[in-house]
Each structure stands twice: as C-alpha cells, then as structure tokens.
C-alpha cells in the first residue's frame, strides 16, 4: 500500500502524515512512501491551469501506478485523482495517459474509505478523551460519497465524545484559490462555520482534509476561540499510551 501524503501535509502538516502511517501500520499494513511523489495538481486544475496540470498528472500516475492501493489523508486530493486526472489527460489529447489515470484513480482511497471499505475495520483501537465536532468536508461528502465512514470510525474511539456539528454539510468557505480570490465571501462562510463549531462547545473540530482545517483553524486561532483543529488521522493514531 502506497501513501500519497499530499503536498500540503508534506510541507505544512507533517504530523498528519506521521499519524496516517501510525494508524495504517498499527492495523498491519505495510506502508510505502514513494519519494517521487509531489502533488496531485488539484490547485492547478481547479484554478483553470489545465495545461500546466498535465505534467503533474503524468508524475502522479507514473509514481503510483505500480501499487495495488494508494491512500491519502485527504478527500479533495483523492476526489481530484479519481474524477479529474483522466479529464486533464484527455483534454491534452493523451488517451493512453487518461486510461492509466483512470486505473490509478480507481485504486486511490481517502483514509476513512480505505479503513472501512478496503480493510473492513471500524475500530482502529484508538483512544482520545476529548469532545469532538466533525466537519465532513465537501469533497469527502459529495465528490467521494464517504458518507458516515469517518463518524463510524470516531464512534469507536475510546473516550471520544462526538458532538453533532449543526449545518455540517455546509462548505467552510475554503475552496482553494477562492479563499484569496473571493476573500470576503470566503470569510463570511468561515464565520458561520466557526459559529456552528463554537455552538457545540466541543474542544476539538476535526475533519479529513488539512486544507479545510487550515482554513477553519486559522479563523478560530485569530479569534482566540480556544478550539483546536485536528485531522481525523491524528485522532485515529492516538492511543492510551501515546497521545498525538
């Protein structure tokens, strides 16, 4: 099984990558980190730079096509790999790359999908004695359709008290370059998301995408709100012996 750590986690949130490795290895997976990996190209694709993205799709496919399964701690990167890579290749007139991209995309999984669907595990043996509000993130919810899988995993975590996040299915306002291009609208959406998070009284706001967490966490920190943002992988990696 190959870990696609994502460029964001690699560069800014390495603890999330380490937590992903810890959970998978605890469950007996042999985790390989192909060092040739860089970025899935989602930011290029969603900002309209489709020509520039072709090389990134090529790089991703070449790096990962020999692996039976590819796991990433991100719903939106997996969404891009599964639904956009072949489109980019086809647009570039490279039917062969498109076919390879489709094959790789079908074997690429977001962490909770891999744990629940591929490994058939809902209790990963974690312990996390905190109150948690879970934000499902748009791409996990709608592009991948992970449904209740993350919640199922969280419900089995020892000591964890899950509090339902009101309006959870509403976007936090990140949207990649949208956060900068339409900063005012993005912040208006973030404000409502933070109000919903704070209304739960939870200590922790969790999600399965570091990008959304960077957005929500950046806002909560600016407000000195006293709520931490934590990636799903970090919660699942925590045990009674080793807090994250």
């Amino acid at each position, binding site marked *: 099984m190959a870990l696609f*750590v994502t460029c964001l986690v690699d560069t800014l949130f390495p603890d999330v990558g380490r937590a992903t490795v810890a959970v998978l290895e605890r469950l007996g997976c042999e985790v390989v980190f192909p060092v040739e990996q860089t970025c899935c190209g989602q930011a*290029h*694709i969603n*900002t309209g730079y*489709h020509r520039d993205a072709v090389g*990134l799709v*090529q790089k991703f496919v070449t790096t990962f096509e020999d692996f039976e399964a590819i796991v990433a701690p991100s719903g939106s990167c997996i969404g891009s790999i599964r639904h956009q890579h072949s489109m980019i290749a086809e*647009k570039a007139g490279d039917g062969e790359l498109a076919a390879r991209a489709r094959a790789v995309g079908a074997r690429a999984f977001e962490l909770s999908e891999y744990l629940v669907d591929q490994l058939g595990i809902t209790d990963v043996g974690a312990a996390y004695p905190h109150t948690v509000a879970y934000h499902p993130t748009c791409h996990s919810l709608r*592009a991948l359709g992970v449904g209740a899988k993350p919640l199922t995993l969280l419900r089995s975590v020892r000591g964890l008290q899950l509090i339902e996040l009101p309006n959870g299915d509403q976007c936090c306002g990140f949207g990649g370059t949208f956060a900068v291009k*339409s900063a005012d609208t993005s912040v208006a959406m973030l404000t409502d998301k933070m109000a919903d998070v704070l209304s739960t009284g939870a200590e922790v706001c969790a999600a399965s995408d570091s990008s959304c967490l960077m957005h929500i966490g950046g806002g909560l920190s600016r407000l000195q709100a006293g709520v931490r943002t934590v990636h799903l992988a970090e919660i699942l990696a925590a045990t009674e012996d080793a807090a994250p």
Partner: protein
Amino acid sequence: MSDAPAPTAPIHAPAGVGMLRGARTFPEAARQALGDPQLRHNLGHATATIREKRANVVAEVADWAELRNAGQAIKSATMATLDEQLVRLEHQVTAAGGVVHWASDADSANEIVARLVRETGSREVVKVKSMATQEIGLNNALAQAGIDAYETDLAELIVQLGDDLPSHILVPAIHRNRAEIRNLFLRAIPGIDPGLTDNPSALAAAARRHLRQRFLSAKVAVSGANFAVAETGTLCVVESEGNGRMCLTLPDTLITVMGIEKVVPSWRDLEVFLQLLPRSSTGERMNPYTSLWTGVHRGDGPRAVHLVLLDNGRTSVLADQVGRDALNCIRCSACLNVCPVYQRTGGHAYGSVYPGPIGAILSPQLTGIEHNASLPYASTLCGACYDVCPVKIDIPSILVHLRAQDVEVKRARRDVPTPEAIAMAAAAWTMTDDRRWSRAQRSSRLARLVGRRRNKARGLIRSLPGPLAAWTVARDAPRPPAETFREWWARERGRDGQRR
C-alpha cells in the same frame, strides 16, 4: 490541447442590451452585498426555508433518482436534435393557428415584440413572470417604443415598483422582507390604503387589487414558457399565483418569448419535468397553476398567439461539448438555495438575471467568457448544486471547464502573463520533479522568517505578504514546520524510501 477550432466564431448575446453582464466583478459586487446585514438576514432566512421545504418533498418521492436520470436523459437527447425539434415545434404551432418568429439575439427579439404590440394598436402589456424577457431587457425596450409593461407576478411587481433588479430566478424579491415591501407599496401604489400592514396576506391582497384592473383592460400579454411540446405545438407555463392564468387567457393577443432550449419532444417528456420542477423549485408537490395552450381557439382565449424563439448565445453554448449541459436547466433555482456563496451574497452580486451556480455557468457562456470572467470563480466547488439539480447538471465540472477557458483566453490575449499564471507555471515546473520539489520545500521554510509571528503559543503566522495577505486578513496561517514529512520519513525509514 484546445478543442478543434469551430468553423465560425460563436455568436454570443450582444452587449448593451438586456441583463447578462454586471458592471463590476463578482468579488467587488459581493463585498457590497456582504456588508448589508438586512440583506444577509433576509437571504439566510428565505433560502433556509425553501431548502427545508424542498428536502422534505423530495424525500417523499421513492423514485427521485430515476426521475432525475430521466430528466437528464430527455434534455440531453433533445439538445442533440434541437434543430429538428424546433422545426417540428414551429410546424405544429403554425398548424394550430399561431405565428412563430425566430430571434437570433436580444435586439431582434425586442424588435419583434415591440412591433407585434404596436400592430395591435395597444400601448400597454401585462406580463407573466419570465426569465427570457428579463434576460433581453424587454421592459426597457418596450418603454423606449412607448409601450408600458406591467409585471403581474407579485415578486416581479415588487422589483418593478422599486425600480430594482431581480436577485433570484424564482423569488426575484428574495432580498426584500415584508416590512420593506409594505413601505414600497405605500410609496409606489397610487390610492393604496395608508393603514396597510406588513401581514403577507394583506400585502398580497393590496397587489391583487392593484393588478385586477390591468388584467381586465389589457389587450396584449407577454409571457415566457417553461416548456414547449414539439409534437403538438403546445406551450406551458407553471406558476403559483394565478396571475399567469389571467394573462394567458384574458387578452386578445398573447406573445410568448422562449429560449430555444425549452422545447421537449413529447407529452410523455413533459410528465417527467412537471414532477421534477415544483418539488425542486417551490418545494411543492404540485404547482398551483399549470397553463397549457395550443394555438388559437375560436371564442376561447387569445385570438392571436405568437411564439418568439430566442437564441441570444444559446447556439454557441450548444457548441461546447462540456458547457452545453447548462442548457438543460429548467430554472428551478434549487442550486441557488443550497449554494453557500449565493446564500451570503444574494443574486445582484452575479450581475446577471441568472445568478447562483447555474448563472455562474450560463451567463459567461451566453455572453462569451470575456464578459463574465469572474463568475466561474464565484464558487468553492462544494458540489451542493450538483446534488440537488433535478436534471443532474454537473455544475462544478463546468465551472472548472470555464475557468480553464478563461485562463486560455487570457493567455492568448496578453503579451505578458499574469502573476498568477507565472506562479502556476513555476509551481507546476517545480512539482513535476520531486528533487526540485523537496528543494523548494526547504526554501519555503524561509516563510518562518517572512511571516510576522504574533501567535507564538501556536506557532501561527498573523500576516503574510503579497497576494497571500488576503488569507491573513481574517485567518492565521500555519508556520512551516522544522521538518517536512519526507524529511522525517528519510530520517526514520531511509531504507524503505529509497528510489526504486
């Protein structure tokens, strides 16, 4: 990379007429809307109410997924044979005693309608709520021709009396609350009872009294159409207030302006949409009034029936293999009500009569991307619109497609690439090689020095330079860690991580 060049340049909706282009970019217009607390409250309340109603009535339908599939399939098949369907429609409308006019654009449609009204000798028309006539700016064109147009839908009346613009496809006055409407009525309706309250029934009754005389005296009505059935030449309007029924039956002359994409081949197809539309739009099981008319009938209804078929850029949308699905829209506006962006900015920020997610893909295609370049970016690509669309238009994918079109147009037009294009090209160059990428990651640690660290306890950055300053306006930024993931892996698991 690009699609094969079209044989002729696509013909877009002309500038200077109608309502498809805003004066400002989306972010600029949105900023103003976001600063209006009353608007935010009105919109938040209204969209939440409709969202809940829709969700409840959709959940009742066991075969909703199949209905959506059918709606999508019928629309796509119709678009694939649109030329044939339209000719068939023309033939059947003509056979039933109606007159069909072809309008290539807004100017042409406005001229046709103004001429038809003048020929009746009348100087006024009553109108059924219609997106097509808003799109082409018909009321303005008629005013210039000395003809008064009276909107008879309650919300359109509110918009017209306030000299305002519609901000929602289905609920054009969604940005107004009842207190604002009461004040408007007191100001704008002559002879109104000064004791009018803001009770919704009292407001509706006041509008009803105001409109009644218009219905009885009008000789000409102008409508749009939700559907046109090609096999019999039948036109269809669905509505909730009965004003449409009055307009469609009382006047001597009925002129219908309809986008060419509204045709459906048969009555069996209509059956699907009459189930999908009311539940998706008003959250009702069935709409209160469904009017269907086929040509002219002696002694019953209008004596002259005209159909103006409007292109105004639609053919160019049809030519785009990805973008053409936007023509499948049945104007239910479910995508507006679930859109987290629309819910906060309202419709005026989009600058077009078609706001929200569907507007963000339709307006730029009708006008050409150059004229609505900011709209495809007015979305986080959250996908809520795609989930509720009754004909399954993949709006997020079309937004991404149009963003790419915008980038290509800018690339072709400018000698100097934009800073964003340079950054994207540089990032792509760096990231197609992992050695370059890991070197770049190491140098990104310089950001530890660039960002001013105020929030020391959490190691976050309070303010970033350049375009990223828009991030730190309200959000702290993460401080790059001392060690990237790949450095940790190399240190801990060096052997496994070796290059294959």
